[in-house]
């Protein structure tokens, strides 16, 4: 099976704008204050920055962003073919009483988000945590779902993996369906 293009760069930008719109709507509707976005390494980080940029533009806010690496919180050390690279965790603000929106590229099993919840709560006690993902592709193994999903597709395990590429990390904005798990091959 070869890679199959699901969304091109125009569609990727439109989906990111749609996520920002959903978040902005809820911020206004429910008067959510002290919002900060934390992107999960690797592609959640540029995604969080782009969403925050859009929110700051439309809502005239100054929303901060941070990055979170969940390698130290995984539950499968020694069980994976390779240890995941540790990327930077940089949360330069106090998360106590903040409304944190976790941002990741793909919601699949939910295990990354499980680890991220443990990781982020080790930094403090946020008022609330919500989850924004570019794509919810189904196949959840934990009782975790996204509050804001840019796209929802229901894929079977044997259909392959969904891979979001962003200009900041991969030199293009696109979404592919690939036969290989993008998280276990060498980056």
């Amino acid at each position, binding site marked *: 099976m070869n890679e199959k293009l699901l969304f091109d760069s125009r569609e990727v930008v439109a989906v990111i704008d749609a996520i920002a719109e959903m978040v902005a709507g809820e911020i206004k509707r429910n008067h959510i204050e002290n919002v900060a976005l934390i992107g999960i390494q690797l592609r959640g980080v540029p995604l969080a920055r782009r969403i925050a940029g859009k929110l700051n533009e439309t809502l005239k806010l100054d929303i901060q962003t941070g990055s979170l*690496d969940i*390698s*130290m*919180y*995984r*539950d499968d*050390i*020694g*069980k*994976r*073919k*390779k*240890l995941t*690279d*540790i*990327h*930077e*965790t940089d949360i330069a603000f106090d998360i106590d009483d903040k409304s944190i929106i976790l941002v990741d590229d793909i919601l699949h099993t939910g295990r990354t988000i499980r680890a991220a919840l*443990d*990781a982020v709560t*080790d*930094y*403090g006690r946020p008022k609330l945590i919500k989850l924004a993902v570019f794509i919810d592709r189904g196949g959840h193994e934990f009782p975790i779902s996204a509050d804001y999903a840019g796209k929802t597709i229901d894929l079977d395990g044997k259909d392959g993996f969904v891979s979001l590429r962003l200009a900041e990390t991969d030199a293009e904005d696109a979404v592919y369906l690939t036969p290989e798990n993008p998280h276990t091959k*060498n*980056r």
Partner: protein
Amino acid sequence: MSITWTKKDLLSLYDLDAAEIKLILDTAAEFKKVSERRVKKVPALRGKTVVNLFVEPSTRTRTSFELAEQRLSADIININAASSSLKKGETLLDTVKNIEALQVDIVVMRHSAAGAHNFLAPRLSCGIVNAGDGSHSHPTQALLDIFTIIEKKGGVEGLNVTILGDILHSRVARSNIWGLLKLGAKVTLGGPSTLVPKEFEKLGIRVCDNLEEAVSDADVVNLLRIQHERQKTSFFPSTSEYANIFGLNEKTIKYVKKDAMIMHPGPINRGIELASSIADGPRSVILEQVTNGLAVRMAVLYLVAGSLDKAPS
């Protein structure tokens, strides 16, 4: 960080290439942040068991490893030689095989025999981390020294690093030499010729028996402890003579560049290799070395644990 750690043991920096050393150091930088948080613990090694087998006395290295293991959420057993079966004549291999039979994942060991870890590692499926073997190797000390240099100087390539003192008996010196050369530093060794053999020049290192010459262009001066316990014969006439000729003090510090950093692996013999005013002065990074040691050991244990017992997938 594009390479993958594949070794189940950390025996010596001699065995590693520059990319592997950099991987450990990059990983350590993220682990250092864990100890700066309110919750100073991560679940990375939850469910793993680490045995600290110290067949030679140690306080700071053992404490550092133990704390690193706790901050990684590993389960820990400490075995001291004085209270172990080694005293009853059990061989080292039997002792460690018995430990391994308890389904232990990693053994952190210090041993007075050079090469003890190299002997054990291929005979065991658990990971072996060298916490010092005789005069041979002490990889985590060298890694924390290099980590501290990079943190302060922004890099290590092209720097002049001078190691002073008892090179002959020093596993810290050997490990630093391997690591520093692999990362492109220029290394000078200084001290009395009885303790700093000319043979080291074969590694492409400058060897000096004159303090001023050894330190004058150094960006980093790493002083080693004069190890009374490893000197079976006398290598210099007296400690006061050593202090006068090779010690770093108010008088000799003027040979050292103003922006050079002063390091020491501890424990310090104050007033012998290093005067208190310098050990506690602004150029000293001795306590930062201790702090960084924790991060480096967390990184090593994390990487070693990640390469163990690969389940078929």
